[in-house]
Each structure stands twice: as structure tokens, then as C-alpha cells.
């Protein structure tokens, strides 16, 4: 599956099928600081992601305020 990441913007190819939480773990990302979006829909940590899915992992932390 093609995974879009931010900060900085980049794309990585990850082998599926894979659960959301396993994808985050593989990329060493904390669930509490990210949202996983398939197409334009949010998915939960237990959702199975297929090889053909377009995934965006969106960071939610903002700072400097």
C-alpha cells in the first residue's frame, strides 16, 4: 500500500494486508499523535488495510503556541 506521511511530506510503500496499529508500529509512530485516513475516511487501529489502499498518516501535534 502507498502511505503518505507529513513533516516532511513523503511517500513510502508498505506491504499489506496489515492492521492500522501494526502499520504505525512498523513506522515507529505513536497512535496518540496520528490519524490514519484511508481515501478520505478515518480508520480505527484494528482496521485491516489492503495492499491496494491509499493511506494517509496525518500528524496531529502542533506547537509553538
Amino acid at each position, binding site marked *: 500500500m502507498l502511505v503518505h506521511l*507529513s*513533516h516532511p511530506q513523503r511517500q513510502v510503500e508498505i506491504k499489506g494486508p496489515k492492521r492500522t496499529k501494526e502499520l504505525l508500529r512498523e513506522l515507529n509512530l*505513536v*497512535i*496518540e*499523535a*496520528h*490519524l490514519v*485516513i484511508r481515501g*478520505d*475516511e*478515518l*480508520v*480505527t*487501529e*484494528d*482496521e485491516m488495510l489492503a495492499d491496494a489502499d491509499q493511506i494517509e498518516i*496525518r*500528524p*496531529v*501535534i*502542533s*506547537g*509553538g*503556541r
Partner: protein
Amino acid sequence: MNCGKCKTKAVISLPRHNAAFCKSCFTTFVHEQVARAIKSFKMFTPEDRILVAVSGGKDSLALWHILLKLGYRADALYVNLGIGSYSEESHRKVRHYADNVAAAHGAKLIVHVVEQEAGAGIRELATILHRPTCSTCGTIKRYQFNRAAVEQDYNVMATGHNLDDEAARLLGNVLHWQDEYLDKQSPTLPASVEGFAKKVKPLCRLSEREIAAYAVVNRIDYIVEECPMAKGSKMILYKEVLNRLETESPGTKQRFYWGFLEKQTKPEPATESMAEKDQRTLHPCQSCGQPTTAETCSYCKMMAKAKTATPR
């Protein structure tokens, strides 16, 4: 995973609430959390005119959206800081929301451009003044928001500070024992003197992740890109540390911040020194004579049990 309320497919799970929600029930949950904060901290009433400080990010646009959906009279102020393409993009997002959503609720957007008044953008001003950019930015935004609220007769100014912002700020203040800043962490700050607008933080019960999820679910187009000036900021580091703790132990952030707010509202108990307390509560163990609160100290109890217990 299914929604705990309506049993349809969930889009988000919230470990700190031991809950999972579908889109519709999650939106209701967020609205309820904001309504609860507004009521419990006496932020404003439906009659009040509210000025929301918007940046184009998820928190402030979600706040404006929620207040309009809850039926409040909320306009917004955007301060264009002049940070190149970042400011251009955030300005576009705010304008898009104002024209396509807020206008239908009768709400308007006020824009202040730093460069027009100060003659330079925030980066240039920080360089000229030999001050960190984030502190220059904070001073300008606080000043302009307060000025707009007071001059244009708004009853209250609302910012998008969330649970993560407040917990991270509290951690920073406690780490450096900056007691003098703790009073300013209340979700409602009164208009203490003439010239100061009342300030409120209606998102203080919601985490950053919950607000971002609300924005995605409700198709609010916000700027995902981080402010280039905030890179390496201490606030981001504190948030990362808290999020690691939250992942291991859900509810840590809310217990930390809400616990602090609760302590603030309770009167300080009469101070008693440790020695005074020990003298009042401790007496010699009837078995060994060392000080204990019980008749027999825990060491003697443990040893007595060890001598009589049969090995497994």
C-alpha cells in the same frame, strides 16, 4: 470495531474514555464536550458576541465550526503573520471556511495583516528585535486579538487551545517551577482590568487527536503543514513525551491537567509540617518499637506471615 452507542462501524476509538464512535456519534461527543466546558467554566451565553482567534489550523477552525453548529454568535479574527507560503496557505484555508461555511451562519471574518501595520513580517520583526520568532508572534497575536475584541465590542475572545496544549504548558511550567504562570492556565480568564477582553478555551476537554479527527470527519479543510517557525519548539517535545505516557496509560493528560484545575479551585488545606504530621500519626510498633501508623509495623507483619506461611 463498532460504535459503542449505535453499533455501526466506528471511525475512532478513545482509550481514555474506553469508547469508540462512528462519525455521527463522535461529532455529538465532541459537541457535548465543548458544551460541558462552556457551562462548567462559565465561558459565555448564547447572547454573547464571541471573537474566535483563527490560524487556519485544525483547532481554531474546528472551534469556530463547533460554536456555529452549537448556535453561538461567533465571528473570527485571522492574523496574517507574513511567513511566506505558510501564511498564504493558512490565509486561504481560513478565507475558504469563512466564505463557504461561516457566512451561511451569518458569521464574518476579520483579517489583520502584520506587514501592513508593522512594515515587516514576523520573521523580519524577530530579527530586528533580537527576539525568538515564537515569542514575537505570541505578543503580536495576543495584542491584536485583544484589541479587536475590545474595539469591536465582543464579550469574549475564544482560542483553540486544547487538552494537549494545556497539559504541555503545565508540564513546562512545573518543570521550571514557573508558579506565576499557573494562574493563567484556567480555561476562563476574566477581563480583569479595563482594556482586557475575557478569554476562554472551549476545547480544553478535547485532545489534539480528537480535534483533528473532528476536522476530518466534518470535512473542515485545515492547514496540516506545521508552522516552519515552530520546528524544534519545547512545546512539541513536551507533547511528544505526554503522548508516549498517554499511549502507555490512557487518561494521563486529562488527569494531569484536570487534576491541576481541580486543585486550583479547592482552598489550600491548613499547612502542617511533615514532622508535625508524623508526631500526630505515628507511634512505636508493639513488636519492634520502630515508628508505625498501625499497632504492628508492616515489616513485623510481613516477617510474622513469612514464618507461618507454607511454601508453594
